[in-house]
């Protein structure tokens, strides 16, 4: 009965089209999968409409305005896959009472749900993820205490996004006693000769790659060129899809990257999508070989979390098309444990998570995967972030924002 | 000489030209050029001489001008379907008004570009080059200079020389005398006559210097406001009272001094 509308502000053209087509492809496939398999969520059919943002902020805002009122109850929630757009619609969304879901990107301090009731950086934000990378390196070195005296280079994209994790890394460098070397790669990052010569000169033990777009492949190539071992390079999740390593060719073998949704077609849910959606000829991917790739799986995870939020919200508001405000409640009361993951066929694909009024991130966990030359192979289980370090920084930042904007944070003890 | 009995080389039939879809400039112009003749196109500023020549050479399109009515035929072939390059290939070349040299090429390179369509081989081209230098010794002196840095007259000579390098059968000359010293003007017309008589090259020349033009041409047309208002043998035109007054500056007996022109003059009869 009825339809639940989920807007798709996708980007399928421009420099980042490879990511956009993969993620929104997986996202849309999952919605269709639910429709085909279960006839929607609780009988409510899921509908969507795409709007091309070209990954541009102004186009994103236009898409937001265009799509927010569609469907019988308006947009359920927005997933922009762009931090810039997420920032730009922040206040509008609060006014319009539509949640913004930013899985793995977006405004970090929005993890504090008291100040940002409408924003959900689910699974992991940039700061949490950054701490897991250091934890991972610690693991590899045989314990966090072994980090002392090590040199870690942070090769970052020359943009605000690239710089964002520097404070966290600095805090960790102090805490664990490693030396942090920050090296900037000017955007878009297609030339890294001088940066890698510097790395060759400084001989760090590890390189953290905070890449984006073409920068990641170029970095891997340049690493090979100066002979830096690829299995000592740890990328952010934006630098961890097939599309980031394939262009580097054979030399990418051994490279490691973080993932909130690892690559792989063997997860039961992905298999099921193939069966239900693709065999019915309803698949969204132009190239069905990309089903199960990292970007695709990220899209599936988007689908799972969006749908779960609606499901949870239906338990409170009934099986009918829900408003954004109602979906928001669902997002804030997500509880996806191992059992539920199993039902979803997504064990290992999505970390267990639980959101609350205080915590809009829910998990903070990522896995690490390594490129074996043809495929991504998960090499760790979910690694939790350093909450003790990150959470106070988040709260401080959110409080500063609240002060600047004159927002009174919610009192979470009064929420139900 | 019997040039009038020669076959038509070029015939322009009632053409209308519009610039930019709105500006009507030629309002039905017709005339013919017989093989081996020199025809002068006379008329005041803005009468449409240049436009007519460009319509023939098909350079009009590049100025967003268009022949919207009538037809132009060269040796019986419709011209409007041809590109300027094809026309040059058939021997029709235009010397554009206002010099139009290639400023970043030297004088000599300018001349050599004129031989682009000339398939006769290096030796022949070198010969032609010498011929042009013989016509214009001044160019030989300046051959290594960039054309952009030569004087106005030198540029004019370059432009004319460049056209000669194509070994044309018919030349459309637009204001050849402009900016040239008097003895060079005489020389240029001497060249025109020479080419016409010895190599039977035909000329259509748009010229303000009516005096000289009518001395060398066989036949003339007078254009006013996009229409042909008068035509006839050169000698007959030169004898016409109106032409005498308005184009030759002759009033009654001999030339009138430029100092003594009246402030209010009689208007042209055909415009009244």
């Amino acid at each position: 009965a009825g339809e639940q509308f989920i807007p798709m502000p996708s980007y399928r053209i421009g420099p980042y089209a490879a990511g956009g087509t993969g993620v929104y492809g997986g996202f849309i496939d999952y919605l269709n999968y639910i429709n085909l398999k279960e006839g929607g969520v609780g009988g409510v059919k899921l509908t969507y409409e795409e709007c091309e943002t070209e990954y541009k902020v102004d186009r994103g805002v236009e898409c937001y305005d265009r799509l927010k009122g569609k469907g019988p109850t308006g947009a359920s929630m927005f997933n922009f896959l762009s931090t810039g757009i997420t920032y730009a619609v922040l206040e509008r969304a609060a006014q319009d009472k539509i949640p913004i879901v930013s899985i793995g990107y977006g405004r970090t301090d929005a993890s504090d749900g008291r100040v940002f009731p409408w924003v959900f950086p689910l699974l992991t934000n940039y700061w949490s993820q950054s701490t897991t990378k250091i934890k991972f390196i610690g693991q590899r070195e045989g314990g966090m205490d072994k980090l002392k005296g090590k040199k870690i280079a942070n090769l970052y994209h020359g943009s605000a996004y690239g710089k964002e994790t520097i404070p966290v890394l600095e805090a960790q460098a102090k805490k664990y006693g490693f030396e942090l070397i920050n090296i900037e790669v000017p955007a878009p990052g297609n030339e890294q000769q001088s940066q890698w010569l510097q790395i060759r000169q400084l001989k760090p033990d590890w390189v953290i790659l905070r890449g984006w777009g073409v920068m990641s492949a170029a970095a891997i190539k340049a690493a090979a060129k100066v002979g830096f071992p690829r299995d000592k390079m740890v990328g952010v999740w934006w630098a961890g899809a097939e599309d980031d390593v394939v262009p580097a060719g054979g030399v990418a073998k051994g490279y490691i990257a973080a993932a909130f949704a690892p690559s792989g077609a063997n997860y039961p849910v992905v298999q099921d999508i193939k069966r239900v959606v693709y065999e019915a000829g309803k698949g969204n991917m132009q190239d069905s070989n990309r089903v199960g790739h990292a970007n695709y799986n990220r899209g599936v995870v988007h689908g799972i979390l969006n749908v779960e939020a609606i499901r949870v919200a239906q338990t409170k508001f009934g099986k009918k098309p829900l408003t954004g405000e109602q979906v928001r409640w669902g997002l804030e009361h997500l509880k996806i444990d191992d059992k539920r993951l199993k039902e979803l066929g997504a064990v290992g694909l999505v970390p267990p998570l639980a959101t609350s009024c205080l915590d809009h991130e829910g998990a903070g966990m990522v896995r690490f995967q390594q490129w074996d030359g043809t495929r991504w192979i998960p090499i760790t289980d979910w690694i939790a972030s350093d909450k003790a370090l990150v959470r106070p920084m988040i709260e401080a930042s959110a409080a500063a924002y609240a002060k600047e904007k004159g927002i009174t944070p919610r009192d979470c003890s009064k929420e139900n | 000489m019997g040039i009038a009995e020669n076959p038509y080389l070029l015939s322009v039939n009632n053409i209308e030209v519009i610039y930019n879809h709105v500006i009507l400039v030629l309002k039905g112009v017709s005339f013919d050029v017989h093989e081996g003749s020199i025809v002068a196109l006379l008329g005041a500023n803005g009468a449409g001489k240049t436009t007519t020549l460009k319509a023939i050479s098909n350079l009009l399109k590049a100025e967003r001008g268009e022949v919207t009515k009538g037809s132009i035929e060269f040796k019986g072939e419709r011209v409007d379907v041809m590109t300027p390059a094809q026309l040059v290939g058939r021997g029709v070349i235009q010397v554009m008004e206002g010099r139009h040299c290639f400023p970043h090429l030297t004088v000599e390179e300018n001349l050599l570009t004129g031989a682009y369509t000339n398939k006769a081989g290096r030796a022949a081209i070198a010969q032609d080059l010498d011929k042009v230098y013989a016509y214009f010794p001044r160019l030989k002196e300046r051959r290594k200079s960039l054309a952009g840095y030569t004087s106005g007259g030198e540029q004019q000579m370059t432009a004319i020389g460049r056209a000669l390098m194509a070994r044309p059968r018919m030349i459309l000359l637009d204001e050849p005398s402009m900016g040239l010293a008097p003895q060079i003007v005489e020389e240029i017309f001497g060249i025109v006559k020479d080419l016409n008589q010895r190599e039977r090259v035909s000329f259509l020349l748009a010229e303000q210097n009516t005096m000289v033009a009518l001395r060398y041409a066989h036949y003339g047309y007078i254009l006013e406001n996009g229409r042909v208002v008068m035509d006839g043998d050169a000698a007959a035109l030169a004898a016409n009272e109106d032409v005498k007054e308005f184009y030759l500056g002759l009033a009654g007996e001999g030339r009138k001094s430029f100092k003594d022109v009246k402030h209010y003059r009689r208007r042209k009869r055909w415009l009244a």
Partner: protein
Amino acid sequence: MQFFFEVLIGGLLSGVMYSLVAIGFVLIYKASGVFNFAQGAMVLFAALTFVSILAKGVPFWLALLLTLAVMVMLGLAIERVVLRKLVNQPPISLFMATIGLSFFLEGFGQALWGTEVHGLDLGITDEPVGWLLDDYNLSISKFDLFAAGTAGVLVTALALFFNRTRIGRALRAVADDHQAALSIGIPLQHVWAIVWSVAGLVALVAGLLWGSRLGVQFALTLVVLKALPVLILGGFESIPGAIVGGLIVGAGEKLAEVYIGPFIGGGIENWFPYVLALAFLLVRPEGLFGERHIERV
């Protein structure tokens, strides 16, 4: 000192990679006085076509030939559909047309071949030359040397083609004055068709080399940003200028990034080449080998 040389040589070699893209611009500028904004899109289109044909199981050389044929056809089509109608228009209009063209090509290429990112392996590894590394501890990439060699061959061939044939002179004439060139029978259409086809060839070479370094993806269009300062420094009309400009820009930006960067925070490679070019221009406003701007009254 050894590090200095490494940076310097590395810089010079990456400069050559920029030159490869810059040459494409030079060709079209020479032939029409137009700055071809679509050069980046052409690089992408060529590389994308090539890898997609390759992916269909066509052998390397045949794929190369087929792609070349496609680029030539593209050049012919551009002349016929667009340029021919814009003869004698102000350069800025032609410039805009190339912008439209770049949108079209970007869309067309990806509509035809998809948006996914392809790897491209030319069989030359991007690894240091062994004996240099062992004996002198100098890291010089084989691939870079190969690219430099290719660029050298390309430049020599083009320079010969344009300087030894009458086409070369005709090109310069066309760039100076479309209408006058038409008036003396230079077939503008042929000239443009030829030049755009050759530019397509250059785009293909640049696309292959850059594509094998960055992968064949949309970001290939962005290598243009590296070519612009090269172009300006060398002069818009000069093919050798593109090479020399590339060397200067490449070496300059790398040295600056390594030796100046740390003092002002790094990441200066994006603007440094432009500032460098600007400094050169203040001395020679037409670039190193560009044509003097003739201004007379």
